[in-house]
């Protein structure tokens, strides 16, 4: 594992994630014909949250205090597994793509565990809904990822991207659709942000405050960024540098940033234009995408 590359990747993602969120808020504001907060506003918010004192419910357990850290730890490790700018991620071995799925899922799961540990029944509602969405989301994600690995004959993200860059195929293009929906789902955007349905119930994060809330939100943003990066590189596996020392590296980083902002822009436009689903509709609307993801596995086997 290349430590320097790991550190660079970590630093990049940790810096960029809140900025992406700020950019999203700006775009949404513009669509709604207002000026909106500055792009760095999310950073200011997180720093402010870190400065505030936490208020803990009296019925909470210790897991409630620890889970934001655990969740963030898992998200950060997930950062090391995806490539950013280079062809090979810092941590790469056979089966790392499955590890990625697991880390992201564990991060969300720990968020849910921690919120129920706070003892508020609304957290229970939020956790139940969030995990319902996650179940379907995992179906879509697993189908797509397995398609990619079947198609490229490998379970390492680096090799997958390398093989994809040679020629696009129908199977992988079809697999991108459920993956895109999953990334949309995980970034908590409007049609599907059931567990953060603020006007309805506050959702999972109802009892978190102060530093814990900051960490949870930050962890969420990092997860979204990681998934967005994955989506970008699976859709656009070209123009990646060989390593962080090559001269092409800054260009590929700029390309990465551009694509990230583009993706965020598209997502935010969708976000502002649509209304939130009811939980039943949300679940029923996701089922076709699961079918599409399994269909793409079959297509990959057929070699199409």
């Amino acid at each position, binding site marked *: 594992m290349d430590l320097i590359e790991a550190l660079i990747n970590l630093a990049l993602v940790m810096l960029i994630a809140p900025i992406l969120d700020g950019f999203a808020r700006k775009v949404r504001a513009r669509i709604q014909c207002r000026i909106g907060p500055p792009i760095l506003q999310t950073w200011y918010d997180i720093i402010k949250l870190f400065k505030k004192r936490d208020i803990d419910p*009296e019925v909470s357990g210790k897991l409630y205090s620890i889970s934001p850290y655990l969740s963030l730890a898992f998200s950060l490790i997930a950062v090391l597994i995806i490539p950013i700018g280079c062809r090979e991620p810092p941590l790469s071995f056979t*089966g790392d793509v499955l590890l990625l799925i697991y880390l992201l*899922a564990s991060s969300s799961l720990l968020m*849910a565990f921690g919120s129920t540990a706070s*003892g508020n029944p609304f957290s229970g509602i939020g956790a*139940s809904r969030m995990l319902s969405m996650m179940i379907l989301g995992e179906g879509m994600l*697993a189908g797509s990822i397995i398609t990619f*690995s079947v198609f490229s004959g490998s379970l390492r993200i680096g090799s997958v991207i390398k093989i994809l860059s040679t020629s696009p195929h129908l199977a992988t293009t079809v697999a991108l659709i459920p993956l895109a929906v999953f990334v949309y789902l995980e970034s908590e955007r409007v049609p599907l942000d059931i567990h953060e349905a603020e006007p309805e119930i506050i959702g999972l994060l109802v009892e978190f405050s102060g530093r814990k809330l900051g960490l949870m939100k930050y962890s969420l943003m990092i997860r979204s960024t990681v998934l967005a990066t994955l989506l970008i590189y699976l859709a656009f596996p070209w123009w990646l540098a060989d390593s962080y020392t090559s001269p092409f590296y800054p260009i590929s980083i700029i390309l990465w940033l551009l694509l990230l902002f583009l993706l965020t822009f598209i997502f935010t436009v969708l976000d502002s234009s649509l209304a939130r689903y009811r939980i039943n509709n949300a679940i029923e609307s996701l089922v076709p995408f699961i079918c599409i993801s399994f269909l793409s596995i079959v297509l990959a086997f057929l070699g199409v």
Partner: protein
Amino acid sequence: MVIALIPCALLVFGALISLFIRDKWICNLLINSITALSCFLIAAAGVEGFLTKAEISLPLDLEMGIDPLSAVFCIVLGVIGFSISIYSIKYMEIYDKMRYYGICYTSFMLAMYLVIIVRNAFWFILFWEMMTLSSYLLVVYEHEKEEVRRAGFKYFVMTHIGVACIITAVLLLYQQANLAGIPGMSFSSLSSASRLMPPYLLHICYLLLLIGFLVKAGAVPLHSWLPDAYPAAPSNISALLSGFTAKTAVYATIRMFFIVLPVDFWCGILLISSGLLSMFFGGIYALRQVDSKRLLAYSSVENMGYILLGVGAGLSLFASGKGVLGSIAISAGILHTVNHALFKALLFLSAGSVIYRTGRRNMDLLGGLGKQMGVTSLLALIGSLSASGVPVLNGFVSKWLIYSVTASSWEIPILPICAAVAVMMSAITGAFLLKYWSSIFTGRPVEEVKECPKQMITGEAILAASCIILGIYPALALSPIAEISGELGIPIGVVKEQLLTGIFLIGPVAVSTISLITVFSFLSLFLLLTVAFLRPIGIRAEPWFCGARPSDLRYQASSYYRNIEEAMRAAYIGAPGISLRIYKEPNTDRFLVSPFVRAFKRISRAFLLPAMGYIQLYLALMFLALLLIVGVIAWIS
């Protein structure tokens, strides 16, 4: 090899002694201590047998031996049995019938130990049957209750049909052995006989053995006894049943299908399909349970699905010629067996702790026990996270290994699809375990309870510690498991290299290691926590109820995941459209078991016609039959 026989003697001694002790408390203590000691010796025997590969031949054809496969299972039985016995020292205080418990428990342990050691088919069936009978007696421990009796009866009938199938298959093989002149019923002679059998007969044997073993393992078409029997039994017995009895079926499957009989591709496919169905249905049904032990029972079905997926994948890969990948798949299946035994036993013991203190299994009526039962809550949390596959704990390693193997076997198209389904099921596992843990341990407390006694916590703590250790250092379990591939004819070195360089903690070129990741996550977590504790702790306040007055409102366990149930209505066969409060359990029995039962009843009723309750009539009929036989014989000769 003497170590291997001491536990047998000890357990028999325990069984006999429990008959004579009247005092409840002394009997309880004695039985559980003896069993704990024997389990410790069983684990030691496993380790010794693994190192020296010993064999014993007793008279009457009782051949026993500990090879790597048996050794792994011995060690698992030792660890689980030890923890459960220590736990039971205090847990059994809520029950009364100590002598009943003493005899059945010791013979259950003895039978399970002997099943994984014998090398002779006759004794194997004998001990299998002994295991079934003693576990039945333990399941109906509270036989005053109607539903316990019914659950036990269902368990009894279904497992005995399985045993009948196994006996038939063994007899077919034995007949072939006789025809070929091979003496004895040991596994090796059956093995040689099976190679001389005509193919259709061999396939019938495969099918019969599969039915027999799948019933015991609790895999989906034949699992319907499981969700009734596990809640009915006392919690330590459920832990033992789920943690080891189902695994003996896995052991038997591996022993029969890989070592004794020639490998067959379609058996592997059958195992895989059974695994897929178990994963799916186990998870889906577990989502909506309100009874804590029933939820864990369905979770056992689901995990058995994973195990069968691994083992079946191994079988199919073996049969297609991919030896190395196949043995990795089997190692993954066996590793998940070990891990599942550990965390499922832990979960059942935690459910038992809750029952010990509150007497309730209904999660709607429980809640908020975490503050008062802090240690139990933590251990249950470790169990839940382990079962969900969170990376630092052991469930993750085996699940990851199973997914990697199945996703890499591109020649068998169904396997990557199974991997995708398995990942989805993994999310469902996390979901229902969250429901389990949070319904019982979080929220506002429902009543005043005290923490559980030390012995119960010790038992659970041993299991939790093994979960954590195996999570960080999986090589501890994987190196012995990799040795099993030596039995299967694959060079051990290749398999070990494939398995362990990915997973070995301190390896020569250990760049790409999962353990390194988990340790890294620990370190980063630790750093963040130290940064955290530089600040004062937050102030306490009431939970936020969106502006309303705080009340005793709780999110009930029965409301979790209702939407998923509505969306997947079709999967809950037999349930009405939207079930608000009473969730009707889907009944696979309707399709699989009931037709047979009805036909059987009709046939039996036909036989009942001449019997009208008068013994004179029976006598007359018997005598006429006798005359008939004598006449026929006389006429023939």
